[in-house]
């Protein structure tokens, strides 16, 4: 990769940036889930590595969160954009060179930001934990170059229209820049009080709603038709999905602070808008499920389809939870409990990760023109992710309900801690399964690059049988 950084743009093989991003994202996934497993061990066994400032839970929790959001998920998105955007425009990526530098700056900036966070140097704001110089760096050297490349690739496309996936891509790369600059403004301009508290959750909500959710869905709009060979069921439902994301998903930020002293109109408004999140969710899931018509055998036989459809199916409980748990009727019970932690992992490790996993599997095989090294390892990876996640989600949901009950029955807090202990151990086991699965994935993709069977031009990797 590095030898192309200073090469002329036209000398760089197409797809280099996507490969660089793809492997970077897998490595960050291994690091991020490894940290998650380590943190979970501390909650289950409090005397495991304790009394050491460099491995303190309070220093490492945010490193796990930021590594998976801005390392794994966002870099997998960039990887998908680098190969899907030109493929859908029947053109080449506007600048492979910009893409390579983008990825290099991204890795350097993220490594720097996580190191600083690990040392305890933080803005003290959840999800926008990075100190403001790192936020500015990420906006200028990560998201603006990414947006430039995606926009220019769409502008220089050779097709008449723009396909659904690309609407989402160009809108999301624009919105994430706005979210980054506005959401961190309390740090840039020293805004205080409720403004700071509200903007913290405005950022947290919108980085999920206007970046992670729409881009993950956009990836499914590409992978399912591409791999099954079926056309997208409905372009119109895609329209409904897109516009309802922009209108409904960008407004409910205040529902994260339902039990905090914010103006009541703002909380009520956010709560109603929050239920309307079901509109894009139902549009998306039904559109993808109907696209699968006649090809459901691929859900069993094809690894990319299995990942994508599992992710889409997880969007159903995700949005049912998301739409209703933020209403006042339910929020008072589960606010601030492990239920929310389970929900956040359903969004990021369930729904979103399975969709991106498919994009990275498919993309790396397609660009490198190598068939997957081992389908067995990929199956193992799938099941370790799914079982590990399920253990995590079930145990944290139960723990959350225990906490909620403890809250309303005014149980001494230590009894809640004691009751949660078995679920903390289960959460650690689930997280560790995910981590080990990801190590297998990294090995599998590395071996694919080295010794995978060559895929002839014009064929899909899954159309080839294994020769070994």
């Amino acid at each position, binding site marked *: 990769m590095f030898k192309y950084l200073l090469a002329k743009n036209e000398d760089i093989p197409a797809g280099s940036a996507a490969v660089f991003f793809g492997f970077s994202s897998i490595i960050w996934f291994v690091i991020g889930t490894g940290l998650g497993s380590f943190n979970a061990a501390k*909650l289950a066994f*409090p*005397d495991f590595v304790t*009394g050491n400032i460099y491995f*303190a*839970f*309070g*220093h490492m929790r945010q490193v796990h969160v930021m590594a998976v959001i801005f390392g794994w998920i966002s870099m997998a998105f960039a990887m998908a954009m680098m190969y899907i955007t030109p493929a859908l425009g029947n053109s080449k990526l506007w600048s492979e060179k910009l893409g390579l530098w983008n990825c290099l700056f991204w890795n350097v900036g993220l490594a720097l930001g996580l190191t600083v966070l690990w*040392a*305890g*140097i*933080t*803005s*003290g704001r959840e999800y926008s934990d990075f100190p*403001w110089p790192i936020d500015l760096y990420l906006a200028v050297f990560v998201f603006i170059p990414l947006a430039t490349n995606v926009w220019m690739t769409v*502008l*220089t*496309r050779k097709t*008449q*229209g*723009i396909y659904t996936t690309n609407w989402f891509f160009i809108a999301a790369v624009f*919105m994430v820049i706005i979210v980054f600059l*506005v959401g961190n403004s*309390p*740090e840039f301009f*020293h805004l*205080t*009080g*409720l*403004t*700071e*508290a*509200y903007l*913290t959750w405005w950022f947290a909500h919108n980085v999920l709603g206007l970046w992670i959710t729409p881009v993950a869905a956009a990836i499914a709009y590409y992978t399912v038709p591409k791999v099954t060979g079926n056309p997208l069921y409905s372009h119109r439902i895609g329209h409904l999905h897109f516009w309802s994301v*922009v*209108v409904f998903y*960008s*407004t409910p930020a*205040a529902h*994260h602070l339902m*039990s*905090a*002293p914010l*103006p009541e109109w*703002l909380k009520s*408004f956010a709560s109603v808008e929050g239920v309307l999140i079901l509109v894009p969710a139902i549009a998306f899931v039904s559109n993808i499920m109907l696209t699968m018509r006649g090809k459901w055998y691929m859900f069993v036989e094809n690894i990319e389809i299995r990942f994508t459809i599992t992710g889409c199916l997880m969007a159903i409980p995700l949005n049912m939870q998301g739409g209703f748990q933020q209403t006042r009727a339910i929020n008072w019970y589960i*606010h*601030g409990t*492990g239920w*929310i*932690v389970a929900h956040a992992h359903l969004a990021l490790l369930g729904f979103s990760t399975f969709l991106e996993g498919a994009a990275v599997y498919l993309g790396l095989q397609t660009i490198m023109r190598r068939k997957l090294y081992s389908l067995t390892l990929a199956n193992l990876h799938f099941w370790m992710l799914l079982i590990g996640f399920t253990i995590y989600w079930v145990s944290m949901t139960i723990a959350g309900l225990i*906490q909620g009950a403890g*809250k*309303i029955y*005014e149980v001494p*807090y230590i009894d809640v*801690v*004691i009751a949660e*202990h078995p679920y*903390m151990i289960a959460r650690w086991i689930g997280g560790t399964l995910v981590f080990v699965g990801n190590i297998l994935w990294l090995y599998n993709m590395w071996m694919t690059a080295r010794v995978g069977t060559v895929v002839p031009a014009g064929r899909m990797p899954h159309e080839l049988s294994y020769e070994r």
Partner: protein
Amino acid sequence: MAGFREYKIGSRIFALAFGGSMCITLLLPSINIASVSSTDVALAKQLAIGHETGFNLDDPLMQGKNKPLVVALKADPKTGQPLAQAMTVYVYQPGTSFPAGILHPRILGAGIEELSVQQGHIGDAKKDTGAVFAISKGKFEGKDHSFIEDLTTSKGWTTSDVLKVAKDEDVSHSGKGKTMFVREGCWWCHTLLPEQTQDWQVFGAPPMLGDFNGESPTAFGSDRKAPDLMHVGSRNSSKEWMMMHFFNPRLVQPHSIMPRFDYLWGEKDADGTPINFAKWRSDYDDYREGKSVSAPDVPSYAKDSEIRSLIDFMLSLK
């Protein structure tokens, strides 16, 4: 270049939809929140905690620099005579940044702003020479308000005068303590927000709209794995309990899953003797395994240690 020719209408609708959503979620709430007046809690909190507690250029390594001291003043700093009633003053030593309410009195709210500027003279406070603030009571347009008074201007009390008459036990490092609270990530498990619906009985009253003016970060916390701390100082004001609990929470609560924060003691204890952590831990392990009858003593902390400020902050959360 295919461009966006055929997407003219779509781009305009996008601008309208996204812009409208930003207007409702950013512009209207900021107008509303900006009109909220500070409560007494907000005045006291911002004076005690100072300018910024997250990453900032005055304290880039988050060591608790650039923070005020809170002094329970019992004697007149000029004459040395005992005061009829002890008062709380907030000492900003020379070079310490002032909180948002002093820099931008507008955020204090109607009435409080005018009183603080006209009677409190907060506009005359100088960062270079330092200032001593207190919360006073006054009337503006017939209404009672608390306001911030700059005692350095109104009474001529300098920071060194005040610190000279104050004993160490009367000085609270709660501002530095909040830096420790943010840096050590206490707020990942302990919330600072009793909920409006359920927490009255156990964790005390939920905060009011105006309780946060001037505070940054508010560090509400979202993932409660441990008791809320907003009023912890009212429930438990024992320094000794706090000390044992921070050194090793399982000394006082065997089922606690809180990490040990013994590293905040630093190298030396209150007498300047180096703390032997390795020996303490092996003694503690013997105790835990039943080989010895009592747990080893927790070393008492030095006056300027990080743990002192964190405990001061805990006790300030009334």
